[in-house]
């Protein structure tokens, strides 16, 4: 008991001076550091947190937009592809049509030409035949004229003449 009384456990006895100084120092620390350091740090951290959240949200949004854009692109591409094949098909059809028409026209034309050629040939033939007939008639007359003028006394000569005439006639 006496031992404890004698020991000076001074930290439990709040000293007036220390009390006053602690009050002054802590209040100054609170008002100065709190206002000009802790406050701004808190605000900066809050702002940064908001900024980061915003940036993340925006990135998410951009990602979504990108995905949307991609889908749209794909759609457009598919459409374009489809259109292209449609165009190609159409072109092919047109081409086939043109070729067919051309072929048909050519055939018709060819037939026409052929027909007209045949006709011409027939005409020419007929003309030729007519000419031959005419010539033959003329020849026959000529021959007959010659025969009549020539010596028909001898039989051999007659025969030769007749044969000759016959040969000419047999040509037709």
């Amino acid at each position, binding site marked *: 008991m006496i031992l404890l009384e*004698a020991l*000076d456990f*001074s930290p439990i006895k*709040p000293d007036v001076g220390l009390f006053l100084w*602690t009050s002054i120092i802590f209040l100054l620390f609170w008002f100065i550091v709190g206002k000009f350091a802790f406050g701004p*740090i808190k605000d*900066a*951290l809050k702002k*940064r947190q908001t900024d980061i959240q915003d940036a993340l949200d925006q990135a998410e949004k951009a990602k979504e937009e990108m995905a949307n854009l991609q889908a749209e692109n794909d759609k457009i591409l598919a459409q374009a592809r489809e259109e292209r094949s449609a165009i190609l098909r159409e072109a092919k059809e047109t081409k086939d049509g043109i070729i067919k028409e051309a072929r048909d026209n050519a055939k018709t034309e060819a037939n026409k030409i052929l027909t007209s050629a045949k006709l011409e040939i027939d005409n020419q033939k007929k003309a030729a035949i007519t000419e031959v007939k005419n010539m033959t008639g003329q020849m026959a007359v000529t021959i007959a004229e010659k025969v009549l003028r020539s010596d028909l006394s001898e039989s051999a000569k007659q025969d030769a003449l007749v044969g000759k005439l016959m040969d000419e006639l047999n040509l037709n």
Partner: protein
Amino acid sequence: MVFMVSTCLLFAQNNNKQDHSGHNHASHSKTEGDHSGHNHAKGDHSGHNHAKEDHSGHNHAKGDHSGHNHAKGDHSGHNHAKGGHSHDAHTNACGFVFDKSEFNPGAVAFHHISDQNIYSIGPWHFPLPCITYVKGKGLDFFSSGKFNADYHGNGTNAYNGFVLYEGTLRKIENPNFPTGLVDIGHHNVKALGKKNAKGKEIAVVHLCHDGKQLACENKSTLDFGLFGGGLTSFYDFSITKNVFSMLLICFLLGWLFFAIAKKYRNNPNKAPSGAQGFMETMFLFIQDEVCKPFLGHKWEKYTPFIMSLFFFILGLNLFGQVPFFGGSNVTGNLAVTAVLAIIAFFVVNFSGNGDYWKHIFWMPGIPAWVKTIVTPVEFLGIFIKPITLMLRLFGNITAGHMVIVIFVGLIFIFGKNGANVGAAWGTTIASTLLTLFMMAIELLVAFIQAFVFAILTASYIGAATEEHHAH
């Protein structure tokens, strides 16, 4: 750690050989009553007892505390029989006994955790400014270097009616004591057991000057006699070791946080780096784990206060743990924790809304007769909350400091204060490990207590500002 402990050990050994080096704290703070108790228990320290017996005679002559002497009287015959040598004890002209054969770990621990008017780092004492106020005399301003303190912080000079004992200012009660510098020599100030007005034995510091005992007054304290202090005629507003430590830590913290705040302001879009990153972790931890959950949508308003509390306490807790740096026990001083608790009390109660006061004085939803019980309890709670804040921090930090000092003190106990060097070295190893372990725990406690103070204050503010919608 080993170095520190072994240095202490060497000091102790030297001490044992020299009569006047005065290393042993214990002997200084001892009173005669203390010795008496000791002798009763052991009864075989002849040298020691012999010295005490001298002293006893002296007190008899004075006849001013007979009860005390009576207790010692039982042993006087016995001591006489042993009589003879006194190689460990020294008695001055007034019969003050300075005994080095004893090591009192309690006294050493109390000395180390006390606030002082000098800043001691190892054997060096750095003077601090003293600002005193004496009733009727007014303010006085001088340096504690005037006292020319010895190893223990006991002044070898008196100055303007003040002496330095255990590093703390005491005022010589006699108003006729000469002002200015007075050489009082070594080993002439000692706490003696005296009866106070209520008949209770208390330690009173005495100066032995020109063969006369002069009682000295302690500085005024705000414990209102509860812990043996109280208001006296003298107030000490000095920049003590604790005040100096507080100023130092506040400047360091201020500089650090201003630099960090500047970094945030100048480079708001840069990732944190260096100290900024380190402090940001703690800052965010307190902000997100303490402020936001407890203070709700008002967290921004109270964050600077909670941060100030946390970093102020943490800085000082950690500063007290730094070895070789005086080990100032700031947050383990009741005056400091009391101020923090009182400020927290004001912040809580000034923030309190109508609901808070209604819940204290007229708790809704309970029968009227229960209210008569609840209201006093709630009302007391307003004061008990800051008191627990004050005591928790004080107790934890003081206990930590004391345990470390006592672990180191084990070396002197087992080494018989330098007489048994083998045991001292053996204990040094064990004590180093124990102290290392304790310091690791104290490091944890430094953080935990700062955190606990912050979180509880935040919860009290949160409770005071909470809006109740249910009732």
